């Protein structure tokens, strides 16, 4: 790796990190926060990013770990993907997070990359932002001026742009525990195990009496930010989940026919927008069925 030169700061406390970032923000310096390096190091390596300094949060143990707080699970920003996947609390209380995180990159990356880093990078092709959106996570952010909370619906502002002000650090994420009756699935469509999702669907479905009572759908890589498929969520309400006879019409598919509504999927080497739209429709139906078990 041959990045351009940069200054390197490794704060020993969260307060120090906030101070360093606050000073850099005041000076207008282009600093980058380094968590696990999953996304930042490739950008540096390819010289697509030229920050004047890196602020490495790697030695802040208070940002690492999973806590069961009853109605929500708090996941520290520096908790690695691997720790998330292995966490009994996450698997039991917020299984969708565990399911999606297990598909992130490969084992080596999952041991370095962090939950908070993946959120703060705000890459719509990342698997976790769509999950946060679907579950209605809350982002806890700290700066020299104190702490504030940002709901997921407001956190992903634009492509690679989170709602973090200069000088702010993502401390952790509150993941709501949805409770009994919910089923979950993350449907990731990608060409190789290590590659990004062409399209991903995060689905949470609550059913009663064989029908959908409530559904929450987040879409990965269908626009500059993760997308909540609200039209589908509405259309799914009350939909019969019984198996469909061969050749019969599937009401789940019909309800998911507008999964791509309001999206603006990107074009790249792996997929053109019309194909992504098609995939969003097909995969959303599959994800809902899988979540409903």
């Amino acid at each position, binding site marked *: 790796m041959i990045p351009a030169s940069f200054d390197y700061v490794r704060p020993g406390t969260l307060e120090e990190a906030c101070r360093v970032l606050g000073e850099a923000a005041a000076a207008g310096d282009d600093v980058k926060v380094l968590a696990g390096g999953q996304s930042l190091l490739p950008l540096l390596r390819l010289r697509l990013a030229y920050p004047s300094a890196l602020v490495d949060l790697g030695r802040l143990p208070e940002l690492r770990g999973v806590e069961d707080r009853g109605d929500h699970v708090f996941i520290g920003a520096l908790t690695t993907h691997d720790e998330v996947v292995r966490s009994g609390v996450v698997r039991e209380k917020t299984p969708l997070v565990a399911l999606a995180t297990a598909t992130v990159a490969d084992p080596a990356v999952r041991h370095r990359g962090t939950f908070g880093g993946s959120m703060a990078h705000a890459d719509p092709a990342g698997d976790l932002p769509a999950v946060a959106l679907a579950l209605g996570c809350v982002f806890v952010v700290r700066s020299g001026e104190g702490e504030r909370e940002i709901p997921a619906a407001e956190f992903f502002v634009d492509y690679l742009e989170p709602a973090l002000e200069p000088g702010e650090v993502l401390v952790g994420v509150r993941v709501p525990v949805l409770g009994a009756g919910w089923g979950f699935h993350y449907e990731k469509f990608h060409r190789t195990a290590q590659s990004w999702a062409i399209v991903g669907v995060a689905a949470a479905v609550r059913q009663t009496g064989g029908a959908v009572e409530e559904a929450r759908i987040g879409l990965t890589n269908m626009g500059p930010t993760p997308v909540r498929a609200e039209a589908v969520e509405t259309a799914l309400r009350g939909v019969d989940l019984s198996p469909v006879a061969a050749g019969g019409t599937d009401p789940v598919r*019909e309800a998911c026919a507008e999964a791509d509504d309001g999206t603006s999927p990107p074009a790249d080497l792996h997929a053109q927008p019309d194909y992504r739209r098609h995939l969003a429709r097909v995969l959303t139906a599959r994800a809902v069925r899988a979540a409903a078990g």
Partner: protein
Amino acid sequence: MTEQLDAGLIGEQIAESDQLGRPSPAHEVGRARRRKEDSRLVTGRTMWTDNIQLPGMLYVAFLRSPMAHARITRVDTSAARSQPGVVAVVSGRDLADEQGSLPCAWPVTEDIVIPDHPPMAVDEVRYVGEAVACVVATDRYKAADALDAIEIDYEPLEPVLDMTAALAEGSPKVHEAGNRAFTWKFAGGDIEAAFRDAPVVVERTYVQQRLIPTALEPRAVVATTDGETFTLYSATQIPHVLRVMLALTTGIPEHRLRVVAPDVGGGFGSKLQVTAEEVLALLLARRLNRPVKWTESRSEGNLTVHHGRDQLQRISVAADRDGRLRGVKVDLLADMGAYLMLVTPGIPLLGAFMYNGIYKMDAYDFTCTGVFTTKMPTDAYRGAGRPEATFAIERAMDELAHELDVDPVELRRRNWIAHDEFPYTTIAGLTYDSGNYEAATDRALALFGYDKLRAEQADRRERRDPVQLGIGVSTFTEMCGLAPSRVLGSLSYGAGGWEHATVRMLPTGKVEVVTGTSPHGQGHETAWSQIVADALGVPFEDVSVLHGDTSVSHKGMDTYGSRSLAVGGVAVLAACEKVKDRARQLAAHMLEAAVEDIEFADGSFRVRGTGSGKTIQELALATFAAHDLPDGFEPALDADATFDPDNFSFPHGTHLCAAEVDTETGAVKIRSYVAVDDVGTVVNPLIVEGQVHGGIAQGVAQALFEEAVYDGEGNMLTTTMADYLIPSAADLPDFVTDRTETPATSNPLGVKGVGEAGTIASTPAVVNAVVDALRPYGVHDVRMPCTPERIWRTVAEARAAGTGTGAGTAPGTWTTAGTAAEGGPAPTEGGAG
């Protein structure tokens, strides 16, 4: 053979001779020995080129052209020179008088156009990534930083990106002499007669996409000089060829130039090259009188490691109604890229003799035109010409089978050379020495459960299952063991195809083997030790193998074309035989017996009918002491041997692939894969197994994943591994592999080579399976790589065209439940990348 592999891993010893007649554990050849070299390779306790640190070493970074085609109008390196740590900034213009031209050693025709190929561009750039200037600095970061300060002005010229358009009248030219590098023709039999009145003719065009040979170890070069002599360390497959070529290119006399290939982490043909960076490293070391190092980044490698494949193949097959082949006609356009590198023009010709495959036919006709484009030059990539040929004929055989409504395996059976017809001279003029296609195919069908899968396929078709099942077959052979020198001569290749070996008995009875082949991961040290252990009757552990350094191994033709064992291994055996002959003379002298009465077995020379004898170790010590040798006997048990094969070797095999194709998403899942290969006598089953597995993975990668993509301006879009997708173990099925063993008759070991087999066989097997799955939709081809999007669009187009013919169903009724409900995709919207 999985069981046997496990046995080898666990017990390091296979059971006694099995039904295929493999040797008992008393012999080394045939044992699944774990590789001697692996502990140092996998722990990194070895010397890779990039690990080399020399006193005063400088680091090189290259400025590369951002334009596919442009005239260089201004070069200003002054600002870069004053950057911190910069020792020198050198442009192509600065070196114009001394850098020479990178060599092409294979002028395939008399009138071939071989353009001047300066290691750094002087006046014109012809592909994105072509080196234009370089910075030499005290560390690689400073070198990279200073690149930004070099100023180059370009005057854009038209890029040339499409081969067909490049040959059209009025096309912009890559070189003054035009875009046609050569046209090479070859024919056997009366092709007109074969096609005239042929009841069935299948004509298809296949795109062999451009691939990037992705070795685990990037290229790296270190050059150093003491003012008199030069040493070049390089991650190369060809230290010997490189030395000769660098001497000719740079003018450094051959005897003052040493080339070392330390341990090399993969090549797949990409390190069978004389690269600009190797030449320039030498020139910079000479100019600065200091050691210099360059190591490429992965993105730099994707741009500038020579690429593979990139051919447009038109193949026509004429057959009788019963499926008997009458003739095959091939018209090939081969993308050379911007320049002809070491063996660029010869690559498609290595396939020229293989488009007839394993089949008998009356006539064959082959034409290949090499075309210049403004892209990275192409050259050898695992299989080199033969995967392309095998793909075309094996795809065409499936098309013919479909046309005739015959089972594709049955069609092959009707046409292949029967086992009792060997040796068989094919319509392409090669004499296949041995083979047994029936045995390999029958074994593969049994392991695969062919009939059961066909039944499941019929059921899924009947049920209109959105996930369809396809079955693909590939019965392949390849010409390996490159190569008989006289044949290479007849093809205008610039060198021979022999290989050299030295075997030395050391005073303590240990054995040193020097091989002219140069491994880059194949396990030569292990396999050669096994051959020597059997030949000389010494313990496997007592043999060491030296390679890859021209000051140690003075003579060799290196490693490519599945040649190491079939040529280099045979040379080792020949040297052992010479050592044994000398040892026999010495034993006769010491035992006071006639040479004819000395028998050799298990490492001992004994007088026939008596108990007295000498071990080879005792004889080695005796030559060291030299106290009592026969008159005129040189005090050494050493021998050199150079082996030049009379013929190629012809591994063959049958590969079967079952693929599930999700017609709603276009996703392909390989459900099962069976490979039965016949590589002749097996020296080490574990190594063979590894080669087959890796080869299949690489062939599957071409079928489903990999493609080097340039945009309309000639910029490469696949410069990272996020864009150029390489499958990992997670993306591949368990391979079921087995072997038949039909020894080659063309060499005393009976070996054929295995390095390329899997790659050659697997690509058509997978694509045949994908197309087979989609037959009911009226699909007859999916361009490689068969990406989900491409499959989805192909199905959509076929459905729009109404060509589907489901069993017992009217054409056009094949739709998928999901997409129909959504109105279906627009067939061509947006293109398919």
